């Protein structure tokens, strides 16, 4: 592999790390709101890093544009989806987990 390819793989691996954090967070965190944190932040960054790596790997203008679309789209939709779900939960009076609940 060339150094550029190593750099791309490294970027994708970093993205995979945050994707993993999101997946572990979804499983480990105690309630819907905290899980939404993991889903919105870590998953977005994981997606952005990895798709950025894809944009560099596919060296044509068209696929770079498509990748950038995908990144921008992720940036807007992921937090919005997390927000919509958290709000739906709040509307149904699901109480947030607090430290006192833990025992």
């Amino acid at each position, binding site marked *: *592999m060339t150094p550029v*390819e190593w750099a*791309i*793989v490294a970027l*994708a*691996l970093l*993205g*995979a790390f945050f*994707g*993993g954090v*999101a*997946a*572990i967070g*979804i*499983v480990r965190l105690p309630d*819907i709101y905290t*899980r*939404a944190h*993991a*889903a919105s932040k870590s*998953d977005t960054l*994981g*997606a952005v890093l*990895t*798709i950025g*790596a*894809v944009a560099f*790997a*596919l060296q*044509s203008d*068209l*696929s770079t544009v*498509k*990748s950038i*679309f*995908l990144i921008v*789209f*992720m940036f807007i*939709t*992921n937090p*919005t*989806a*997390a927000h*919509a*779900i*958290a*709000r*739906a*939960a709040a*509307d*149904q009076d*699901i109480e947030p987990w607090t430290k006192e609940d833990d025992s």
Partner: protein
Amino acid sequence: MVEFSTALLAIAGAFVIFAVVALYRVFVGPTIHDRVIAVNVAGTNTVIAIALVAAAFDESTFLDVALVYALLNFLLSIAFSKFNVERGGVL
């Protein structure tokens, strides 16, 4: 020496595993919202995996599939949270 495309495919495989891990939360719940947000994460990971496969096989048309999948994934979360709340207005 590792092939470039093999490395990308391996990372795509890692994302598929993360999606499966998120499916655990879909399975155990406990509320519908937990399930929806876990499906959302699994969907996002699938989109990333598709994009990585596109890069590994140098097939930029796969990116269109990823784009559409991302749109559907977003729509699913919004639709679920909207229709699951009786009084609506989440959009």
